[in-house]
């Protein structure tokens, strides 16, 4: 395989005495879908925050297509081609769905200083097309603040795609969705990733989604990588079963 698009090396971050992320390395190839799983508090979200510059790493490096991006602010990281969706979806509550995407397009084209022309006429077709891609074109004129949570997640995805990203970071993209909808969204994400050669890193608690749609899986536990590999290999790992998946034939006493 060609050189990875995104590489992280020995990332570390501590909050007070807690080592939230403790020497995590990972790499992502174009078109690849990598799932990051692990129990709550394993450091998944912090890891994401280090990758897109939301938090400053104590140690370690992040490289995008060979270029060092460690310590750059999120807005610069985004311009370089890493899009992100949040665990708690964040959109512009006072704007319509189409306008939200248009703002991303305006920002991408560096047009946000313009004081005269109407913003909601800017690249409408492109905004519509992006929304259609995630199945949200029907809601283009709705207000973001009034959407159902699953739909907000889709809008976030459309916003992230507005920048033609090389890497997509999706923090629990299907949280708050019905099971059927989850599979749909991840199938869609997988399809977009393959078609456009986007590398996708996502976290997820629904194992059906993980094992159904990820090419590779990395398991985090207490800030460290516990296991990595194909979904099958990871699922078979006894240590992973012990701390996270829970084996059906487990002999451990169950609490409560």
């Amino acid at each position, binding site marked *: 395989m060609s050189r990875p698009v995104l590489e992280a090396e020995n990332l570390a971050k501590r909050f007070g005495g807690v080592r939230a992320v403790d020497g995590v390395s990972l790499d992502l190839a174009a078109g690849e879908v990598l799932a990051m799983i692990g129990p709550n508090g394993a450091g998944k979200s912090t890891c994401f925050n280090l990758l897109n510059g939301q938090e400053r790493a104590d140690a370690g490096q992040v490289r995008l297509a060979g270029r060092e991006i460690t310590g750059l602010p999120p*807005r610069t990281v985004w311009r370089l081609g890493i899009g992100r969706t*949040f665990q708690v979806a*964040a959109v*512009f509550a006072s704007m319509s769905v189409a306008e939200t995407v248009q703002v991303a397009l305006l920002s991408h084209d560096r047009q*946000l200083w313009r*004081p005269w022309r109407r*913003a909601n006429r800017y690249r409408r077709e492109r905004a519509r097309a992006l929304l259609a891609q995630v199945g949200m074109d029907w809601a283009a004129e709705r*207000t973001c603040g009034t959407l159902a949570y699953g739909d907000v997640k889709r809008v976030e995805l459309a916003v992230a795609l507005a920048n033609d990203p090389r890497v997509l970071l999706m923090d629990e993209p299907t949280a708050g969705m019905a099971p059927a909808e989850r599979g749909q969204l991840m199938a869609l994400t997988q399809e977009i990733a393959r078609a456009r050669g986007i590398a996708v890193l996502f976290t997820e608690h629904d194992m059906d989604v993980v094992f159904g749609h990820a090419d590779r899986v990395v398991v985090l536990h207490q800030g460290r990588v516990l296991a990595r590999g194909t979904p099958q290999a990871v699922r078979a790992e006894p240590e992973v079963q012990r701390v996270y998946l829970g084996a059906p034939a487990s002999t451990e006493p169950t609490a409560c």
Partner: protein
Amino acid sequence: MDFVAVQFLTGLASACALFLVACGLSIIFGVTRIVNFAHGSFFMVGAYGAYSLSGALMPLLGGLGFWLALPLAALGVGLLGALVEVAVLRRLYRSHELFQLLATFGLVLVIKDAALITWGPQDLLGPRAPGAAGAVTVLGEQIPEYDLVLIALGPLVLAGLWLLFHRTRWGVLVRAATQDREMVGALGVDQKKLFTGVVFLGSALAGLGGAVQIPREAANLNMDLNIIAEVFAVTVVGGMGSIAGPFLAALLVAQLNAFGILILPEISIVLLFLVMAVVLVLRPQGLLGRKELAGSATHGAPESPLRPEGWTLGLIGLAVLLALAALPLVAGGYQLSVASEILIFALFAASLQFIMGVGGMISFGHAAYLGLGAYAVALSVTHWHAPMTGALALAPVAGALGALVFGWFCVRLSGVYLAMLTLAFAQIAWAVAFQWVGLTGGDNGLLGIWPAAWASAPAAFYWLTLGLVAAAVLLLRRIVFAPFGYGLRASRDSTLRAEAVGIHTRRQRWYGFTLAGAFAGLAGGLYAFAKGSVFPEVLSIPMSLDALVMVLLGGVQTLAGPLVGAAVFDGLQTWLMSETDYWRAIVGAGVVALCVAFPRGLVGNLRALQESRRDTPAVSEEGASG
């Protein structure tokens, strides 16, 4: 060297009152998350109260009466604070912070007029402190004994508070509520009582701060706003919600004042500003403040998106504009000058609405930019004999430059911190205009700023104003719907998301702030010509408040709101001022009522009603906050 030591002691003594008031403000904020503008008023009432109580008690008890009057005054102010909490603040805990700030601002006006009615307009100097009326010699210099009492009082109160918050059950609960008030409520603590108690304590501290001042400083009606700007600076530097922070900051600020006066008496307040600026850049949450408290604490429901008006409203706007243009045909000179003033305030309010509604930045010192525009005009006319057009062109530049400099600091903060900082900057601008007599004429103002001959007739000046204001307002509206406005709204709606799509939110907000400053500056320039003179009042806190009330009246999230608000408020105020001396109290009470009853402003609530009638599933107003 001895002189330095004396100056140092004087600084320590001045720090005492500052600490007491700032610490009370900080405690109240920590638990209720309300920045109490009326805190300066509590300070003032404490001073007046101590004056009256010592006057009543000293004939009976002698010297003891004086020392008894101080804590009694504090107690009385504490009770007043508790009353305010039960009657007003309690109803605002879940409101948007803007309405919390404004409601307490309304209280300032009410309390000021109540004090005027009770104690009259003259300054009241208290008795010298019995038993501490003399002076002691320190290092060969005379130090008032009373200063030593004050120097001791600060640390004593600090120690007492520390014991209260760490050694009593109530104090521990207060600290817990500062961390997480919902959790404390969930644990079965009676929040209502706790909150009332905390406001009582904080107010009492402010009252004590005022009471101990009376042998040093005469009680007067300007104490409230004079101290509040300094106290805001102290709490911002020290860190909101902390107790030791304000203590440290009060010492720092008082020493700066004490020594600054020696070095550069005119600009001692600029030193304060520099310290604040440095602290805010290095530690936005203040010296000892905690980060999570510094962030915006905005409550409120999601707003419906701003939409450009349809044809109907556009036509109505055009009709209104035509009707306004035809006004000189029917109105006389006086009505036209009132109408010009209303138009100017409409522009001023619209520029404030731009940063508040669109940019999400609450400014409590927007008058600074109005004033800069006005002074730019006045100075260029009186000192350089500039022609009217040239002077008027300078006004927006001056407003923008001021906003560029102040805004650089302001946009680093959000929520209440931002509001407090804008107020502090406006107060600094006011102090410079007030103190720099050589340039600005100080309190006497700058006179004789009349429009050029072609615009001197009331109708001509009115048309000029109407043309400029209409053009400026239309331009502002255009910007709101242009990419620039969307960038601002994106930064307001979600900084996280905005940054994650490449928006430099701080820069966007900074430019927005500057732009609003330019429009306010233009309004200020017109204002100077309309009045023919400029006084420091144009930069003062009440002027900023007026603009806020106008925006609030109309509704923060509506574009027509500030225009309607300006017309209603300025018209109403002009009328009230002609009817009664106590118009401030009426305005203040109206503001409080408005904040409690119409959290979206007149136009805003009207539109919400309209929307809920139409079709959309009604967006829940209350309860959406966390």
